[in-house]
Structures are given as C-alpha cells and as structure tokens.
C-alpha cells in the first residue's frame, strides 16, 4: 500500500506534463508578424535597400523563420511544422494580394484624372499624339462593334454545340468535340489572329477591318461559351425533360422551350464572361483591325480602333507621358467595362441559377 502511493506521487506531475504541453498564446502569430515586419523594415532601411519589394520579402522570410523557431522551442516539432505551414499559407496569401491590389489601385490612381467627358467623346483625329488631348471614342466604338459581331457569331454556335454535347452527344464524335473544345480554350490569341490572317486576309484577299478582328475574337470566344453552357444545361433536372416528353412534346421543342429557358440565366452569365474575356484581347486585334486615329463606324470596311489596341499604341508607339496618361485612362475604362460585365454576369448567375437536379 505504502509502496503504491510512494511510486504514484512522484509520477503524477510527470503524466500531467505529457497530457498538456505548453502552447503559445493566441496573439503569438500576430506578434511574430509585427516583429518580423519591424525587423524587415529595419534591415531594409539600415542596409539602404532601394526597393520596397525587398523589405517585404525580408519580412516574409523572417516571419517564417521566427514562427517556426518560436513554436519549435515552446510547443515541439509537430506543432512547429503546423505553425510553419499556416505561416506559409498566410505569406502566400499576402504575396498574391499585394501585386493584384497594386495593379488595381495603380490603374485607378493613374487613370482617374484622365477620364472625363471630353476623353470619352473624342477621337484622336487631328490630335498630335506627342501632345496632350484626344480621347477614346473611336476605340470604344470599335471595341463595341467588334465584340458585338464576335458575340453574334460565337454565341449561337457555342450554344448549339453545347446543346449537341448535352442533349444528343453519346458517340465518339461527342467525345472528340468535348476534348477539342477544351483544348481550344487554350489557343493563344495570337495564333487565332494568325489563322484569320492567313485565311481571310491572305487567301480570300480581304483588307484590314473590324470584322476580320471579330472573326478571330469569335474563335477565342466559342469554346468558352460551349464550356459554360454545357455546365448549365447539365444542371437542368431530367424530370423537366421527361415531363415534357410525357406530354408528347418533340425533343427539339423540349430543348427550345423547356431546357434552354430553364438554364438561360446561367447561359447569359457564361456568354457575358466570354465577352469580358475577348474584350481585353489585344494581339489578334493588332494584326487584323490595324488601328486608326479617326472614327470609323463601319466594321466591314477599313481599319478601326479598339480599346486594348489603343492602349498598346499609346504605350509603345507614342511612348511619352501624354501617351502613358491616355493609355492609363483607356486601361481604367477597359477594366471598368470588363469588371462591370463580370459583376453583372455573376449577379445574374446568382439570381437565376437553376436548382441542381438529381
């Protein structure tokens, strides 16, 4: 009896120590990061490093080392690894946020002073490009027409291909089409431009025009429309189709009157996202639309202008502060347009998404 108590009493605190190891307080990660940033900035300023990028990178490395070392000392190796992983994930998050935020903020900062009524309603005709003034009206008009034409071509074809894949596609052809649609999503825009150039402009002998640009844009747009429409059609519950068949409605009418209207919200979203994607394409437009300083509202005849091409020309050809300013103004308009489309598209998706079937 006495021997048992004698052995138990010294071992008791030992057991307790194994069950609850020491933990860092809750504010430890925050404290470590503050310490690391202070040290990083200190080292950066002390060593006279010009680039703030380096200050940030030093802070990030210090933060990783500190959080691992601290946790390893107090909590043990496994917990230290866990903390290290958490720190790495947070650092990755910040590494991703910083450039993307910088891009957005810098564009707004540079562009906001340029964009005004005059900028939006005038072209570059009779404007000396090395001087101030001028606007993007011709580019806006050109972009809208080219993108509109491309959408008018790509959306119906994309929609019908998706209908084929979802409603009819069973055989080998459907598999091949699915695969190549996926691969087609990754075609570089410049290759699409080269193709239209060799077919439309060289072989068939047409001249530079907005329409030849929209042909290339349509090629880039089709696979995106097919993919998103496909996903949306798959979400339409089979019960709806079966109910329609049971009433004797033929298949094509079922698709046109039941399936597509049910999924129309999602399809619209997909088309708008695709439009947003091709609006920013520069390379094919550069080869096929050619660019112009004046207003050309006819997309089938003669060179036009487009927003991305305008930015490129103001940056690369004009290449002075006035050109940069105009480029930033146009970039801001372009970003606002694309983001606006995205937001509206996602709004529609949320508003009219079909309830997923079984």
């Amino acid at each position, binding site marked *: 009896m006495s021997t048992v108590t004698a052995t138990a009493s010294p071992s008791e605190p030992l057991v307790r120590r194994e069950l609850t190891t020491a933990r860092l307080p809750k504010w430890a990660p925050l404290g470590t990061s503050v310490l690391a940033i202070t040290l990083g900035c200190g080292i950066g300023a002390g060593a006279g490093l010009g680039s703030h990028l380096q200050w940030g990178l030093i802070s990030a490395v210090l933060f990783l080392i500190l959080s691992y070392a601290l946790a390893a000392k107090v909590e043990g190796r496994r917990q230290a690894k866990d903390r290290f992983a958490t720190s790495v994930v947070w650092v990755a998050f910040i590494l991703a946020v910083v450039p993307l935020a910088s891009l957005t903020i810098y564009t707004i900062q540079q562009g906001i002073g340029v964009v005004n009524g005059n900028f939006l309603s005038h072209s570059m005709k009779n404007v000396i490009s090395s001087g101030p003034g001028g606007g993007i009206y011709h580019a806006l008009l050109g972009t809208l027409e080219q993108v509109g034409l491309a959408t008018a071509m790509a959306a119906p074809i994309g929609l019908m291909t998706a209908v084929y894949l979802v409603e009819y596609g069973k055989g080998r052809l459907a598999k091949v089409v699915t695969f190549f649609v996926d691969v087609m999503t990754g075609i570089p825009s410049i290759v699409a431009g080269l193709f239209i150039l060799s077919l439309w402009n*060289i072989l068939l002998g047409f001249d530079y025009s907005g329409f030849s640009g929209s042909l290339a844009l349509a090629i880039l747009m089709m696979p995106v429309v097919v993919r998103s429409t496909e996903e949306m059609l798959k979400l339409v519950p089979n019960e709806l189709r079966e109910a329609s068949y049971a009433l004797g409605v033929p298949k094509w009418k079922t698709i046109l009157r039941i399936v597509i209207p049910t999924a129309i919200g999602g399809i619209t979203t997909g088309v708008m996202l695709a439009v947003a994607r091709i609006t920013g394409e520069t390379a094919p437009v550069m080869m096929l639309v050619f660019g112009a300083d004046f207003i050309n509202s006819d997309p089938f005849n003669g060179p036009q202008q487009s927003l991305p091409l305008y930015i490129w020309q103001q940056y690369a050809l004009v290449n002075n502060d006035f050109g940069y300013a105009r480029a930033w103004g146009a970039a801001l308009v372009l970003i606002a347009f694309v983001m606006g489309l995205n937001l509206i598209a996602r709004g529609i998706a949320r508003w009219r998404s079909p309830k997923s079937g079984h």
Partner: protein
Amino acid sequence: MTSSPPAVPPGRDRRSRRDSRVGDKIFFNLTRGSGILLLVIMAAIAGFLAYRSGLALSKDEGNFLTTFEWTPDAPKPVFGIAVLAFGTIVSAVIAMAIAVPVAIGVALFISHYAPRKIAQPFAYLVDLLAAVPSIVYGLWGALFLVPHINGLTSWMDQYLGWTYVFSQTVPGATPRNLFTVGILLAIMVLPIITAVTREVFRQVPRMHEEAALALGATRWEMIRTAVLPFGRPGIISASMLGLGRALGETIAVATVLSANSVLSLHILDPGGGTFAQNIALKFGEAQPFGRDALMASGLVLFVITLVVNGAARLIIARRKEYSGAAA
C-alpha cells in the same frame, strides 16, 4: 364513366408528328453541325498555319531550329526559333516556379485556413482578377513593376551573381528581362491556377479530413495526408492550364521585354524574346514572306500549347473516373 380525351382529328395528328420528326432531324443536324464546325476550325488552324509555314521554311537559308536571327525579309532570308523557344520556356518556367506554390497556398488559404468571412469575398475577388485584360497587366508591368523591381535585380546580381544565371553584364541595367517577364506572367496566371485548385480542394471528402483530425493529426498533417494527395491531379492540371496561358501570352510580354536576338543564360540581362512577343512585334513591318515566317513560329507555339492543354485535360478526365466526381 371516365371521360375520354378529346379526339384529335387523325389528319392533324399525323401531320404534327411528321413535323416534329422533321423538326427533330433539322435541330439535331444543326447542333451536330456546329459541333463539327468547331472541329473544322481547329483542323483549319493547323492546316493553314502548316501550309504557310511550309512556304516559309522551304526558303529559309538558316536552320529553323538553331538560328538566332529573325530576318526573313532580308535578301537572303534567315530565321530561326532558338532564341524564341529559349525565352518562352525560361519565362514560363520562372512563372510556374513562382505561381504554382503561391497558388496552392492561396487555394489552401481560401479552402481551409481563412475565416469564412474573408474566404468567400476573397475567392470572388480572385475570380474577378482573372478577367483583367493582359494589356493592363502589361502596362502595369512596364510602368510600375519594372522600376520597382530594379532594386531586387541589382541585389541579385550583387549577391547571387556567382551563379552565372543571375549576373548582369551591365550592372543596374533596366530590368526589361526574362526574369521580370516571368514574374509578371506568374502574377497573371495566379488567379487561374488558384481558381481551379481551390475547386479541387473543396471536393476533398470531408470524411478523409475528419478521419485524419480524429487520429490526432495537426491541421498541416491533415492537409498533407488527406487534402494534397486527393488534389494532386487537380493541381497538376491547373498548373498546366496556367502554363498554357503563360506560353501563349503576347502583349504583356511585348510591353515589358526589350527584345533582341541574343540567347543569353543571364536571365537578368535585358533581351531575348518569346514566340508570341516576336510575332506581335515583327508583324507590323513584315513583308508577305516575313508573315509566312512568323506563321511558322506561330505553328510551333500552337503545337506546344496544344500538347500542354491536351495533357492537362487528359489528367482531369482520368481523375473524374476514379474520384467519382463525375457522378
């Protein structure tokens, strides 16, 4: 007792049935036709580029694969893709080396680490940034990133110059080089890789994660044993999709890089070129034969992206089979 349905005149019934059969046939052929049209377009792209490249290559006085210069419109046309292939691969490799780990981190952040209040809006924001046009990335890269990265490249030259790769021939030269291009491409493909990877991480069976946690795993051990193995095919295919975009990026590279026809392993030296950038830059002044030469390089780019994207899709397709995600 039971009221029979109103009798349909037999003539009308037959007519409508025939109509519907014809309608079905027309509709089926229309939809199948547009599917076939897509295939025809793909085939035509390959065919036309191959045809024009054939015209160009037959008159190339240099070796297409090993020549550095690009002077197809000279009296003695000489052009080759050595510099372009090197630049394309190097910038894409740098972009992948930076973007893939960061994208995995961000995807994990959104799916497993972030407080839910941050995660949802942040995921939304990443999707939105994937839509920023590449010309805007290019403008930002040339006018903001290049001046700000100068300190970093000089520092790398000073302390890592002994690696040969990171030494600058002219210290402090404007960093319009392949390294900066790689960083810019990394920033551009990050949203795409993150979006796909995040979706895969979200599909990890909850049971796997809870089982790992129940066995006493820390969060990192749970991710290493349950999340990452499940998501590996998804990560690979997402990376390859990003790679495809990085390889074909045109205008952002053209704005940042100051191109020349020097193949240099000093990636911090301004110079080099990529397929797409070269086409965009040389196209304006190209004669008809010069255009054909550019199409030859375009064909190479097309084939490379085709292979990369096709491989990515095959990996995704295989994954669907064994995970049951298709069901």
